[in-house]
C-alpha cells in the first residue's frame, strides 16, 4: 500500500492547478457564489470549458478512441478534485465528462454519438438529468412520466422536479415510462430542451439561483431515434451511470478546504486558541480525511478493474458525514461566513448541504450498505 501520490500524479495535479490559476478571473471566489447552475456560471462555463478542451484537460481520462488521453481513474479523481475545490468552474458540464459522455459511448447509437459527443468534447453543451418526479424521489422506479410510441414518434407527458440545470440545458437525459413493469418499464429518451411542449419553472432554493426546477412535458414529441438504449433498459443504464456519478463529485476535498479556510479566519480572530474549537475542527478534519481515504479505496477497485458495488455507498455516506459536520462547524463558530464574510464558505455550505440528497439519498445508501455490505436479511416488502 502506498498513500502518497506519485510524482506523475502530483505533476498532473499541478498542471490543472496552474491552469486554473492562470484562467480563473481575480474575483472568481465571489463569482462562484452564484450556484453551479446559475445563468452567470453557466455562461462562464461555456467559455471556460472550451479553454479546458483546448488545453486537453476537459476529458483526459476518456479512452483514446473517444479522443481522450486514456489516463486512469486516479487522474480522473485528481481532475475532479481540483475542479470541485476551485468551486467547479465547469458548472453543469462536469456531468458531461464524468458520465454522460462515457454513457453515450457505451449505449448510444451512432447517430446519437455523432450528434452529442462532439459538443461535449468542445465544452459547449449542457445537459440536465430528468429523473426525480413529485411522487418518485428515492423511489425512482415509481416514476410516471409517460412516453407513448405512435407513428415513429414518442409523445411524452408528465412532470419532473428538483431538476438541476434544466433552465439552461440543451438536452435532457430523461427517464420515461413506456410500460407498467416497474423497473423494466422505464426507458431513456434524449430530449432537446427546445422541443415544443416543455415548460421549465425555477424553484427558489437554498443552494443558489437557477439550481432547482420543475419541468413539465405536454405532448412533447420526439422521433423514435431519440430513444437511448432499448425500451426498458433505463434501469441498467442509470445503474451504470450513477455508479460513476457517485464517485464523480469528490465533495470531501471542498469540505476539507472549507474547514482549512474557516480555521484561518478563526485564527485571525484569535478564536482558534479555544480548546473546544480546536477539538471540533480536528474531528471534522478526521471525517474529511476518512471520507477521502475510503473514496480512494473505491477508486483503487476501479484501477484494478474490480466491480464497484456497495462499497461506493459506504464511501458516499462517509462523505455525507464530513459535509454535515463541516457545514455545522462553520455555522457554529463563524456564523458571519454565511452572511457575507466569506463567499467561499457560503459556496461550500450551499454545495455541502446537498451531499446527502443528490444522486441517491443518504438513507438509500444506508439501505444498500445494510443489504449488500453487511448482508443483513432484507426488510419485508
Amino acid at each position, binding site marked *: *500500500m502506498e498513500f502518497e501520490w506519485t510524482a506523475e500524479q502530483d505533476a498532473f495535479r499541478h498542471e490543472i492547478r496552474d491552469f486554473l490559476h492562470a484562467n480563473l478571473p481575480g474575483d472568481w471566489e465571489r463569482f462562484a457564489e452564484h450556484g453551479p447552475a446559475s445563468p452567470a456560471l453557466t455562461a462562464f462555463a461555456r467559455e471556460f470549458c472550451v479553454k479546458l478542451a483546448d488545453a486537453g484537460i476537459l476529458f483526459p481520462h476518456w479512452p483514446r478512441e473517444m479522443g481522450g488521453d486514456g489516463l486512469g481513474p486516479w487522474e480522473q479523481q485528481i481532475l475532479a478534485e481540483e475542479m470541485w475545490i476551485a468551486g467547479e468552474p465547469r458548472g453543469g458540464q462536469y456531468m458531461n465528462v464524468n458520465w454522460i459522455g462515457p454513457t453515450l459511448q457505451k449505449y448510444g447509437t451512432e447517430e446519437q454519438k455523432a450528434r452529442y459527443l462532439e459538443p461535449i468534447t468542445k465544452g459547449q453543451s449542457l445537459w440536465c438529468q430528468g429523473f426525480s418526479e413529485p411522487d418518485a424521489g428515492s423511489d425512482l422506479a415509481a416514476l410516471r412520466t409517460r412516453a407513448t410510441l405512435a407513428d415513429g414518434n414518442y409523445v411524452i407527458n408528465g412532470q419532473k422536479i428538483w431538476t438541476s440545470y434544466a433552465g439552461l440545458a440543451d438536452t435532457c437525459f430523461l427517464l420515461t415510462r413506456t410500460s407498467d413493469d416497474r423497473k423494466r418499464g422505464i426507458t431513456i429518451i434524449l430530449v432537446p430542451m427546445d422541443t415544443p411542449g416543455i415548460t421549465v419553472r425555477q424553484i427558489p432554493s437554498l443552494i443558489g439561483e437557477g439550481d432547482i426546477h420543475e419541468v413539465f412535458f405536454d405532448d412533447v414529441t420526439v422521433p423514435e431515434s431519440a430513444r437511448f438504449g432499448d425500451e426498458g433498459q433505463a434501469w441498467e443504464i442509470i445503474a451504470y451511470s450513477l455508479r460513476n456519478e457517485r464517485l464523480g463529485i469528490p465533495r470531501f476535498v471542498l469540505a476539507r478546504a472549507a474547514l482549512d479556510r474557516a480555521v484561518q479566519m478563526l485564527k485571525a480572530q484569535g478564536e482558534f486558541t479555544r480548546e473546544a474549537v480546536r477539538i471540533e475542527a480536528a474531528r471534522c478534519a*478526521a471525517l474529511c480525511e476518512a471520507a477521502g*481515504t475510503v473514496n480512494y479505496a473505491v477508486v483503487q477497485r476501479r484501477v484494478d478493474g474490480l466491480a464497484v458495488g456497495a462499497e461506493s455507498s459506504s464511501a458516499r455516506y462517509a462523505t455525507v458525514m464530513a459535509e454535515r459536520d463541516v457545514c455545522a462547524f462553520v455555522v457554529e463558530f463563524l456564523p458571519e461566513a454565511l452572511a457575507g464574510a466569506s463567499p467561499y464558505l457560503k459556496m461550500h455550505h450551499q454545495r455541502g448541504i446537498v451531499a446527502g440528497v443528490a444522486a441517491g439519498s443518504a438513507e438509500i445508501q444506508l439501505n444498500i450498505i445494510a443489504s449488500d455490505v453487511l448482508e443483513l436479511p432484507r426488510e419485508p416488502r
Partner: protein
Amino acid sequence: MQLALNQDQTQVLDFIDSLARPYASVPLHDHSLALESAELDAALVANGFLDVMAVEELGPVTAALVVEKLARLPFAIEAAASALVRPLVDPELPRPLCLVEEGRLTRPVRFLRPGATVVVVGPTGVRSFTASENLIAPAQEDTLYAYPVAFLTGLPEALETHDVDAAEVARAWRVAIAAEAAGLLSAALASTVTYVSERKQFGRPLATFQGMRHRLAEDQVLTNTAYWLALRAAGTGDAGDAALALMHAQEAAKRVCYDYHQFLGGMGMTLEHPLHLWTYRLKLLTAELGGRGAQGLAAAEALWG
C-alpha cells in the same frame, strides 16, 4: 496512491489466519471477562509477526495490518505496542510492552505483570523499566475490561533512558492503538451482525428492522473509515494523520459500544455472548492517550499550529 494489499501483505495475513484459526472463537463454556493465550502469543513471536515493521518490504503498514487482524480475535494479545512502537524505542525490549503516559500513572495498565517492560512516555523523554512484583498492584478481580490489567504502584529509582523523540513515540503509539481499535471495531460489528440476523422478534430477524439497519450501516461506515485512517497513518508516518486516526477510532468506539450491546438486548448483558471481549477492549482504548479530546488537540496542533 496504491491501496490494494500487495502479495507480501496478503501472504502475511493469510498465514496469521491459519495460525490463529484455533483461537477464532471462544472455548466452549468459557465465560471469562478476558481471554489470553500464551500458546498463541508464543506462536506469533516465533513466526516473527510482531517484528514485521523492520522488514523492509513489509514496514509499518503491514505491522498495522497484523495488529488489526489480531485484534479481531476474542483473545487479547499484546501486539500493538510491540509491533508498532517497540521498533522505535528498542527492538530488543522484552514483551509484553506496556506504554504509559508520564503524569498518568494511576490508570489501569494493559498487560502489566512481572517481567513486562513498562515504557514511560512524556515531556521528559522516553524511559523504560522491567516491572517487578513490588511495583504492581492487581486490579479488581472481576474488572470488566477484556484485557488483563494491573496498576503501577510507583516507578523504580532507575529507569533506562532511550534516545528517541517522545513525540515520535506518541505518534507511533497513536497508530498502534488506532490499528488495534480498527480490528476490534470490525470484530464487534461482525459479531453483532450475526446475532441480529438470527435473533427473531415479531416473527422476523431483528436485522430486518430499519431502525437497526441504518444504525448498523452507519457503524459499518465508521468501522471502514477507522480501518483506512489507521492504515494511512501507518503509511504516511505523519503526526497529524496519527492523531486523526486515533481520534476517529475513539469516536467510533464510543458510538458502537453503546449500539452493539443495545442491539443484543439481554444477551448483550451476559458473558455467554462474546461481544464484550471486543467492546470492553474498545472501551478501555477510548481512554488511551488522553481520549478523543487529547487526540483532537494533537491533530489541531499538527494540522494548523
